[in-house]
């Protein structure tokens, strides 16, 4: 029983360290405060896959009353809970692939910029124009104006994973 408690404490302590480390990157004035707009980046860098609604709710919970800032005092416990309870679990690559394949109704292996734009800016948790433009600019084949989604998946999971 005591051992369990101890290892639980170690786990929490590790989680705290990870959270602090991520928080610190955006704490420019070294006063344990970050801009609320960075919260989604921090949450994601800790391995979570939150939805927009998740992020919105989370920020509402931890933001310092209308200031636009979040203090570590509130962030730490809230984020710890998220991690320990695995509230925003990861999406495995094969699921994403399936999702792309659903959209790729002709089974071409790629999606035209136009059709992808239509889906992502009109369905679900829509991309704004800037996000869509950036995705196309960064990942589409410029000559044919298409996105090879298998490559995209590989590139992102491989390159940005650690």
């Amino acid at each position, binding site marked *: 029983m005591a051992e369990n408690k101890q290892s639980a404490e170690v786990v929490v302590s590790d989680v705290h360290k990870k959270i602090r480390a991520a928080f610190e*990157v955006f704490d420019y004035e070294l006063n344990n405060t970050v801009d609320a707009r960075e919260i989604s*980046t921090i949450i994601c860098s800790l391995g979570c896959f939150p939805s927009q609604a998740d992020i919105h709710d989370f920020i509402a919970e931890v933001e310092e009353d209308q200031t636009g800032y979040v203090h570590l005092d509130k962030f730490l416990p809230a984020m710890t809970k998220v991690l320990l309870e695995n509230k925003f679990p990861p999406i495995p690559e094969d699921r994403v692939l399936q999702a792309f394949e659903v959209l790729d109704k002709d089974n071409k292996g790629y999606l035209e910029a136009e059709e992808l734009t239509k889906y992502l800016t009109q369905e679900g948790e829509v991309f704004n124009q800037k996000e869509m433009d950036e995705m196309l600019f960064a990942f589409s084949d410029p000559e044919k104006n298409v996105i090879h989604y298998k490559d995209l998946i590989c590139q992102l999971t491989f390159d940005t994973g650690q």
Partner: protein
Amino acid sequence: MGCGTSVSTETQDKVVEKDNSVKAPNPALTMKAAVLIQRWYRRYMARLEMRRRYTWNIFQSIEYAGEQDQLQLSSFFSFMLDNFTQLNGNGPDLISQLLDPVVNPWLDRETCFNMIPVPESYTGPRLSFPLSVSDTNALLNGFKEQQTLHARYVLQLLYEAKKLLKQMPNIIHLSTSYTTEITICGDLHGRLDDLLLIFYKNGLPSAETPYVFNGDFVDRGKKSVEVVMLLFAYLLLYPDYMHLNRGNHEDHIMNLRYGFTKEVMQKYKAHGREILQLFQDVFSLLPIATVIDGKILIVHGGISDQTDLDFLGSIERNKVKSALRFPRRSLGQLDIGQCCRQMKGIRSTDSSRASSSCSHSKNQRTQNQRKRRCFPSRQDSTISTSSSSSSSSSSSSSLCSPRTPSHLTPRQCPSFPSSPHTTSVLQVPFLDSLSSVGPPSPPQHEREWKQIVDILWSDPKTQEGCSPNTFRGGGCYFGPDVTQRLLLQHGLQLLIRSHECKQEGYELCHGGQVITIFSASNYYEEGSNRGAYIKVGRELVPRFYQYQVSRTTRKLTLTQRVRAAEGSALRALKEKLFSHRSELMSGFQQYDQNNKGCVSVSEWTLVLEAVLRLDLPWRTLRPHLARLTPDGSVEYQSCFEDMGPGNSLPQVTPNLAETLFRYRTDIEIIFNIIDKDHSGLISIEEFRHTWRLFTAHLGVDIDDRAIDDLARSIDFNKDGSIDFTEFLEAFRVVHKLDKDQHVNGR
């Protein structure tokens, strides 16, 4: 890095296998698919953003830490002046070598350039004064074709610019009109491509397209000369439509370290020194602020809670030649009777007697600065000449008569050999402002200096209040309340400043009352940031225009660019670690009494912070810098594993090697100055002497014999001279894992 906990499956939106024959998928499925993709993609973009952000942090920290190191170099110069010794009694001494005596009043006369012939064979732009549009076009075309403007025209252009700038007030007032908008650009830092891109997108300076360039035209980029020549040329052509503010890099001491001095010396072998001297004057004559319609204030850095625009409008701005030096008094105010001579070998220390001459030092906290600004008391004096090289105020210099210094406050004085110079006075072009002679400095001069430094060096921050900018070592951090107060006080509505690189080229803060505008794209690394400029018309609403110069033909993907920038930042960081190896090791060993070779992550972080003094997210960076043992502690030796010296010189001890590596840039600057004929060689004697002084100043314990051995070992030809380029190459560090790293062997 990652969550590390188990993956649970979402039961609700499990995607079933596609039916190939169905052309229009189930709308519910489509939506679920879209959501999945969006969530997944956003998460990866956030992770990339995280990497980009700490890469950015690294670049910025190292950049600002470098600026603090700059003070090291300037304090070394002071030290050298204090500890002057004549080399061999015959030829010019080291100090006068450093400080070319030939330069001065000559530069105020047209003969400085008139006597320089331009050969027939010169194919670059030829200018005729007063300048016309064909001259500026010739410059544009010439520079686009990689030509270098002839020294004669450089000097002439600077001479004319100086004349013009002398007539300008400290603060320029502009008005918008209904038909024209004013374009405001930020830091260019010698990036000619960015300037040309701005002119291309926005139009050349003209009555229809007036410009304000907000400082930092030079340093870091390779085309600082071309950038600043263009800006000054347009200034001369259209003084009503082209406006330049001074930046903190329009400063000859900054230029010594950040590349402008070097660029000039390399491009202009024969006339480099005169050109630099003129630049020094011209830079200090640049206006420090611009105001549009009495509503928009434009300064390079920022403000402080002491900023007083009325006061700033009234001072003699050119007296502050360098922010890193206390302002010179004009000769009229010199009390001729005061002179002194530094005891040899006394290093600057904190001394209470000295506090009156350095009361401004309370604004700057770093140890280097404190050391630099406080001088020990003088014990005796001999005949010495005091120098002045002011070119804007009186240009003569005076001789001091000896006086007992008992009642004198200690101050910096150039010191001279016991046999007085009978010839003309020693001029101090690079370091004239060092000779801040005079009685205890009255508050006036301190205040002028501080006001200007605040304008050129401050940064805005989100917290209220005003505090010394310890990051940079100069100026302040000013909060939204400071901004609010100043704007209100002067009836202004907006502050536009530059000085900080921003990812999008611009950034708003203080509730939109402060805009940072930065015009050098790809500043840290290809793809690191955009550049931007602002246009503002009669309605005084700023509009932003962004751009990015792309230098590679091969298009990099976003992840490739992030990875490249990250790699570059990490290498720079590793070199920092390597150059402080011994200090770091002793720090680590203090936590590792049992000599196990590892410390906890927290301890590792503490040591790094204490030694390197870089505010970085060390925990996040740890995976890139050091290995962990199976039990989660850091093997600290692994920090230094993949770095090594480029070339090992036989007689060099690790301690000496590390010192040489760490101060490589400073040493290079000094060598370049000593090497008057730009041959790339300096004599062994000079090397030895300089090196000894340098290490004494740094307080590094280097055996004299080690230096002699070193000197001898690098004199490969045994002809008494050292090729210092080769020497410096040897103290470059290589990253062992770089397969295509070129190692300079012998």
